[in-house]
């Protein structure tokens, strides 16, 4: 049955469909990244160089 369904698909458009899927995901991720507040990115990026635990919302307690 799956084979029948797949055979009905017009796979010649797969590149375009894939591009659209990627485009949507990419826009969503870029949008999400740009919405990050400066304080949040500062906190996250400091995780490897800080010894104390960092709170995602409130920041480092040190």
């Amino acid at each position, binding site marked *: 049955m799956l084979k029948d369904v797949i055979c009905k698909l017009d796979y010649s458009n797969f590149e375009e469909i894939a591009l659209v899927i990627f485009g949507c*995901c990419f826009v969503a991720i870029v949008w999400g990244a*740009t919405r990050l507040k400066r304080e949040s*990115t500062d906190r996250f*990026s400091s*995780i*490897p160089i800080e010894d104390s635990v*960092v709170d995602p919302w409130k920041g480092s307690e040190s």
Partner: protein
Amino acid sequence: MGSAIGRWRLDPFQELASQRLGKTATDGEKMKEVSVASANASRQATNGLQSAVMESFSYNDGIVRMFVTATILWGLVGTLAGVLVATLLVLPNLFSGFNPNITALLSFGRLRPVHTNAAIFAFAGNAIFAAIYYSTQRLCKCRMWSSTLGLLHFWGWQAIIVAAAITLPLGITQGKEYAELEWPIDLAIAVVWLGFFGGNFFMTLWKRRERHMYVALWFYIATIVTVTVLHVFNNLVVPVGLGKSYSVYAGVQDALMQWWYGHNAVAFFLTTPFLGLMYYFLPKAAERPVFSYKLSIIHFWSLVFLYIWAGPHHLHYTALPEWACTFGMLFSVMLWMPSWGGMINGLLTLRGAWNKVTSDPVLKFFVVGITFYGMSTFEGPLLSVKSVNALSHYTDWTIAHVHSGALGWNGFMTFGMIYWLLPRLYQTRLWSKKMAEWHFWLGTIGILLYIVPIYAAGITQGLMWRAMDDLGRMQYPNFVETVQSIIPFWWARVLGGGVYVVGVVLLAINAIATWMSRPSKYEVPVYTAARLERRYQDAPVPPSKLAGAPVLEAAVAIDRVTKMDWHRRWERLPLLFTVLTTAAVIVASLFEIIPTFLIRSNVPTIASVKPYTPLELAGRDIYVSEGCYNCHSQMIRPMIAETQRYGEYSKAGEFVYDRPFQWGSRRIGPDLAREGGRQSSFWHWEHFNNPAQRSPGSVMPSYGHLLVQRLNFGEIQKRIHAAHFLGAPYDQELTDAEAMARTQAEVVAAEIIAQGGTVSFEGKLIKESTAIALIAYMQRMGKDLYRVDTPVPPLAEPVPDKAPETAPMPR
């Protein structure tokens, strides 16, 4: 650990700073750090961030030391093997004086996979594990979940490497690039990678004390998940014995799966974990946070979405459907964006710290490593463009590209990490900073000495293959002539590789000397932090700007969604994050795989293409075992330059019984897709014995061992059964394979004798040699397309003696 808790408490960063300054922290300083940490935890607990339960823990650096040691050891082995195989190309008869059975073990075809596997899975693999074990503990603020799993992982992985180093020279191989290891080893890889390593990693994430998962951990998650998926699905086989199996995929489908795997092995084994390494160790070494965390998020998701679709660009102009190739090219070109985003992010992390680069070898390695990442990720998409690929494919251009990535990006990032880790792991100073500087310069010069001539060799040979004279005929019809023209470049490669190896030797000496100056007993810093609360209260979502405005409720909801608070939650939920990454990888893969497998028009069958005879099948297995695909392709592209040289271009339907496909990726020798009938069987016999005699200037080594080794006819029957199980329409072969093989061997041997050969060679009948089977296979190559079966006249209906008493049962 217990005794160490009370005895030794030290902030590791204070310790590191002290080491840099060349002084030892006092006990007073150490105790002060602990009290700060405890106070922090208490405050966090009262804020509801952490549990009130305080926990003490230390990091497991023993396992990191083991992986670092293994990285250096295998780095040495892998690069030495590389120099050896490079030398074999310029001195093909280097081992010709040895016993033929020894020579067989040391041929280019068998040793090249040893080099690639040692470099990728042994050197880069152990480097990845060292990086992940060290950084994950620090980023999660907790010890690795299980020391036992860590040890099982370490020794299991080393055992796999040793098994590879033994089986590959013996010719035990699946015949697929970077996936050569046979099924028992593949099973072991799955258990060690996912069971020991993955299990330990994910449980550590689960038990972490840091709420937010830093971006390096995302790259590690993507690595573990995707490599598992790639490894399992590309290595689905039907075993014939412990050392032999047939891929469940054939021809075009096998090619698609292999390069889906091959390209993504580069992506998710040699790129994403090293990016995780970069995002952790570069800020540590530069002592400043990554330039843009936002860019790192975009970098991560773009890579995960894009890489997985790009595999078919390895198969341009082959029998793979064109839509799949276009698909691969399109997404490869788009990879420029995130790759350069990552490179820029890495380099700009050093903003304000460039003065340190001049004096710190660690940063030097990182800067050059990231620059090579930028170069090779610029070049990769370029090579995926069809018109460029038409020139570059099958030439040394690809080899140069791969080595700029492997030696420059993977090698230098690993060396930088090791030099940063050595003093911290062994709790002493690096033995010689000057030697590290020497390593850096030797490595850099070695890479340039390697890649520049090989780029020149690739472009030279590619242009010679397609050069036409005024009458439209090949300007260089003799393939060997094109090989001879690039041999000086190959010599330069040996020199460049040798210089690079000297650098690795310096690293090994420096590491051993640093280890020898270690303290009698390692100090184990103990940390205190609160356990994470199971239920975490997210910060309240700020109200929508549209709340209360005269707009639809849907507009308010959309506004809330676009604030992306949901993504912040994902970033601290390992299970969800893993599921999403897996879904991204699998959905993208299915877009390519499903149509290729399920739509018949993608692989049009050709009625005249028949399964191999038992002897030809045995010969094909020898072809795979000897690693012939490392030098010969079996894929004629639809280009004038190729069809003039090799014959009619290859069709998808010609490969339906090829398990595994043997299209190859490099032409050190000519394409063999239409080799059948091109030369006499006796020519092949002589050519195996002494290639340069039949083909002056050839760099092919002698395969004299094939002439004296006896073919195991008894093995053929079960191989026929396995091929039949996978769909080959055998009939009489299912019961008489051995006898049929012996009969055909006698025919081939008779041909050879009639053409000038002898009945026996070195006291052994030639009809029983392995070479006979290989010749039978080679004489079959590419001939089915032109096969015209003589129609068999229908037999006259036998006249029954009497009418049947009962009508036959309907079937």
